[in-house]
C-alpha cells in the first residue's frame, strides 16, 4: 500500500488509472495551492519546516520526517487498506456488503456529511494563519505548521471523495470549499466554532485540544460508515488527527506547568502578581477552557435530531466505536437520556435513541475530554498548588439546541438573565483576559528558546532534542 510520489498528486488509490478523475483533481490542485498561498500560514511559505509526511499508510511508512517548504508539501490522497468482506455494521442495512459506490437514495445526505466535515479542514487553517508570527518557540511553530498541512491534507481527502463519487455536484462543492472563508460575514464556514478567531496561542492549544477532538469523534463515527471509501479515508485521517490533539494537550499542559512554577517561585496565588510575572493565571486558563469546551459542545448538533437518526439508520454515520457496542446496532426501540430545561431546572428525559445520537457522541467526547483535564490537574497537584480545573456542565453557554434558550452556569444551575449578566465574566474570557494573553504573545525563534509563559516540552518531535532547529528561516 505504498504511495506513488511520482504522480503529480501522490496517492494510493491508483489515480493514474482513472484519467477523468485525475484530470479533475489536477484542475483543482492549483486552486488549492492558490488558496494555501492566500489563506495558509502567513509569511512563512519560504521556511524549511521539519515536517512529517506520509510515504505509505502502513505503520512503518506514514511518519517520514524531513525539512519541507510548506507549499511543496506533498498533499495527496491516502486511504487505509480495504478490509476484505467488510459489511455495513449498523442501521437498516446492517449485514449487507459495505458500499463501494454511493447508494443513489442517500447521495445528498452523504454529500452533506462529507462537505460539512471537509469544510472544517481549511477553516481551521484560516483561523490559525497568523499564529506563526507569535510562536513561543520553533518547536511550537513546527507543530502549528504540521497541524496546518495535515488539515490541508484532510481537505484533500474529502475533496477526493467529492470528485470521485459525486460527479458535477461534487466538483462544485469542492470549489466552494476553497471559496468560503472563516469568519467572513458574506460567505462564512459552515459550523460556528470554525468562524471564531484563534487570536493567541492559548486559544490555539485549547482549540486543538477541544475542537480538534470533536473532529476525532466525527471521524471515528464516519470511519464506521457503510460507504467504504469514506470509512477508509477517515481511518487514515485519524492517525494524523492524533498529533493535533497532542499539540493541544501538551500545549495547555506546558502553560499550566510554567504558571505553577512561577506561582511557587513567587509563593503567591495573587492573579495580579502572577500576570505581572508574565505567565497566565490559572483562573484565566479555566475561563478559556470553559469557552472552548462549550463552543465545541455545539459542534455535535442538536440534542434531539432527526438528521442524526437518518444518518445512522441509513448506514452513513455510526456511533463512536460502533462495532464494539454490545447491542442490536439498529436501536429502533432503545432510548437515550438527553437534557431539557423545565421548572427552572435541568431535567433528564429519555429520548428515542436514534434521535439522540448527537447527544451520545457528545457524551463519548465529554468522557475523553474530561480525562485530559484530569491529567492537567495532575500537573497542578504535582506542584503542590490547591487549584483544580474542571469541565463546565455540557449545557453551559450553548448556542444550538433547546438548551441554548436557557442561561446555565458551569456547575449546571439554571440562571436568570440577570444572574448570567452579573457572573458571566467569571466564567468566560473577558476582553481584558484576551488582551492580557495577547500581550504575552511575541515570536521566539531561536532553537531551544521558549517564551516565558510556557514550559519546554518533555521531549522533542521524532526523538529530536528540544533545542533542535525545527524551522529554518530562509
Amino acid at each position, binding site marked *: 500500500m505504498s504511495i506513488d510520489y511520482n504522480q503529480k498528486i501522490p496517492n494510493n488509490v491508483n489515480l493514474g488509472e482513472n484519467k477523468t478523475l485525475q484530470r479533475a483533481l489536477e484542475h483543482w490542485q492549483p486552486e488549492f495551492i492558490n488558496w494555501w498561498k492566500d489563506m495558509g500560514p502567513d509569511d512563512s511559505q519560504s521556511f524549511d519546516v521539519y515536517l512529517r509526511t506520509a510515504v505509505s499508510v502502513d505503520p512503518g511508512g506514514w*511518519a517520514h520526517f524531513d525539512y519541507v517548504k510548506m507549499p511543496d508539501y506533498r498533499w495527496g490522497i491516502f486511504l487505509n487498506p480495504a478490509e476484505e468482506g467488510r459489511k455495513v455494521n449498523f442501521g437498516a442495512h446492517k449485514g449487507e456488503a459495505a458500499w463501494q459506490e454511493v447508494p443513489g437514495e442517500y447521495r445528498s445526505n452523504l454529500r452533506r456529511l462529507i462537505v460539512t466535515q471537509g469544510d472544517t479542514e481549511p477553516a481551521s487553517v484560516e483561523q490559525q494563519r497568523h499564529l506563526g508570527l507569535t510562536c513561543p518557540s520553533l518547536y511550537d511553530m513546527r507543530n502549528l505548521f504540521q497541524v496546518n498541512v495535515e488539515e490541508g491534507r484532510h481537505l484533500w481527502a474529502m475533496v477526493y471523495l467529492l470528485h470521485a463519487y459525486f460527479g458535477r455536484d461534487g466538483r462544485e462543492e469542492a470549489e466552494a470549499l476553497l471559496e468560503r472563508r472563516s469568519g467572513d460575514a458574506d460567505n462564512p464556514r459552515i459550523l460556528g466554532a470554525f468562524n471564531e478567531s484563534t487570536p493567541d496561542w492559548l486559544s490555539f492549544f485549547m482549540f486543538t485540544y477541544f475542537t480538534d477532538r470533536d473532529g*476525532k469523534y466525527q471521524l471515528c463515527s464516519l470511519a464506521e460508515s457503510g460507504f467504504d471509501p469514506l470509512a477508509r479515508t477517515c481511518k487514515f485521517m*485519524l492517525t494524523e488527527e492524533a498529533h493535533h490533539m*497532542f499539540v493541544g494537550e501538551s500545549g495547555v499542559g506546558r502553560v499550566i506547568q510554567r504558571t505553577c512554577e512561577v506561582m511557587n517561585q513567587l509563593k503567591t496565588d495573587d492573579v495580579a502578581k502572577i500576570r505581572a510575572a508574565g505567565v497566565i493565571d490559572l483562573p484565566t486558563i479555566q475561563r478559556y477552557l470553559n469557552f472552548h469546551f462549550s463552543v465545541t459542545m455545539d459542534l455535535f448538533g442538536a440534542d434531539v435530531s432527526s438528521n442524526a437518526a437518518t444518518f445512522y439508520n441509513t448506514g452513513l454515520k455510526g456511533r463512536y466505536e460502533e462495532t464494539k457496542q454490545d447491542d442490536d446496532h439498529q436501536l429502533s426501540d432503545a432510548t437515550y437520556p438527553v437534557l431539557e430545561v423545565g421548572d427552572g431546572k435541568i431535567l433528564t428525559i429519555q429520548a428515542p435513541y436514534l434521535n439522540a445520537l448527537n447527544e451520545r457522541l457528545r457524551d463519548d467526547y465529554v*468522557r475523553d475530554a474530561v*480525562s485530559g483535564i484530569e491529567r492537567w490537574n495532575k500537573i497542578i497537584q504535582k506542584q503542590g498548588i490547591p487549584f483544580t480545573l474542571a469541565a463546565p456542565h455540557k449545557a453551559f453557554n450553548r448556542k444550538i439546541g433547546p438548551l441554548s434558550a436557557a442561561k446555565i452556569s458551569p456547575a449546571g444551575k439554571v440562571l436568570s438573565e440577570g444572574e448570567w449578566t452579573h457572573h458571566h465574566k467569571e466564567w468566560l474570557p473577558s476582553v481584558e483576559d484576551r488582551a492580557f494573553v495577547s500581550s504575552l504573545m511575541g515570536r521566539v525563534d531561536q532553537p531551544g528558546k521558549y517564551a516565558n509563559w510556557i514550559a519546554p516540552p518533555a521531549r522533542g518531535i521524532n526523538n529530536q532534542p528540544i533545542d533542535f532547529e525545527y524551522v529554518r528561516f530562509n
Partner: protein
Amino acid sequence: MSNATSTVTNLRQHLIDPEICIRCNTCEETCPVNAISHDSRNYVVDAAKCKFCYNCISPCPTGAIDNWRHVPADAAYPLADQLLWDTLPAQVALDEGQKVGAGDTATPLPDDVERIAAAATSGQGGVAPPPWSAAHPYINLYSIQKPAVATVSGNFRLTAEDASSDIRHIVLDFGNASFPVLEGQTIGVLAPGLDANGKPHHVRLYSVASPRDGERPRYNNLSLTVKRVCSDHDGAPVLGVASNFLCDLKKGDKVNIVGPYGTSFLMPNHPGSNLLMICTGTGSAPMRAMTERRRRKSSPKEDGKVMLFFGARTPAELPYFGPLTRLPKEFIDINLAFSRVAEQPRQYVQDLIRARSDEVVRLLRDDNTYLYLCGLKGMESGVDEAFADICKNHGLDWKTLHDELLRQGRYHIETY
C-alpha cells in the same frame, strides 16, 4: 551437570509513559496482536503479547510509546500495575548474576553498539525483521564489563602487497568460551588503552566473515575481514585505533571481544531461498560468511541461486579475489566491478546491476529472494536508483517492492 534452570533471563519490557501519553488510541488501533489496551486512565502493553514489531512506535504522536524497561522475565510489570501508574517506574538495576543468560536478548546493548547499528541500518529506516527461516541468533553474551578473551590463530593479508589498502583476514579462537555466531552477525572489539580524553576506546564492530561452524569447522573459531584505516572519511590521515590494533596482531595475542550482536541481517535457511548480495570492500565479510555456509552444506542443490555484486578499486584490492574466482559458476553468479583499473572505464556495482537486469529482475520477482547490501554508505543511493530503473523497465514498482521486501525481512542494509 546443566545448571541452565538457575539462569533467569531478562525481558526488555515495552511500556507507555502515562505522563506523556494523550490517550489517542493510535497504538491500540495499530497493534497487530492486540497487546495494547486501555481503561479510563491509562494505555498499557501486555508483556505476554507484545512481539516487538515496533508498528506502534512511529504513529505515536507523543513518543510516550517508546519506553522500555529491563526486567527479569518472570517479573514483568503486570497490566493491573500499569493501569494505576501516574509516572513510569525508574529502571531497576538488575542483579549482575542474572545478566549473563544463554542467548540473553534483554540486557541493554552497549550505547556504542546501539549507535553504530542505528547508523548502519538508517538506509532502510531502522532495523528490519530477519528472514522468516533465519536461525535464532544469540546476542549480547559478553558485555564490556565481562568480555570474552579470544586468541589470534591467524592474521593474513588479503590484498596484494602493492595495493593501496591493507585488508586482513584475522582468525580468532575462543578456546573453551562459548561464542556462537550466525552469518551476518557482528562482534565488538575492545582495543586496549585509553583515548585522548583518558577514557576507554569505543567498541568497534566487525562483521563475522566465517559461517556458523567457524572458519575451521568444528574448532571454536571465527574470522574477521579488517581494513587498516589510515585516513578518515574526508581523506585526512588518521590511524584507526581498532583496525590498526587488529591488523598488527600476531598469532597467540589476546583480544577482548563483546557481543555477538545483530538479529536482523541474517540469512534464510529454507530450501529454494536465493541470496542477492551487493557489497564493496570489507562489506564482503558477511557475504563471504553466507556464501561459505551455502558451499559447505551437504546438498547445495536444494538451495536457490546465489548472486554477488562486488565492487573494489582494482582486482588487487578485492578481498578474497583468488578464492572467489575459483568457486564453481553453477554455485555462485559473481559480478565484479572495478572503479580504478587503468585504461578501463570506471565501473560500479550499480552499473553491473543494470547490465544484469534480466537476471536481477527475475530474482526480485521471486518471493524467496533475500537482498543484502553491505559496504560504503555512498553506494546505497546508486544501488537504489539502479533497482528503481530496472524495475521500471520491467513493469515493477520498486517503491512498492522495496517496502514489501523490508516488511518481509527480505532486504538488509548495513552501510558505514
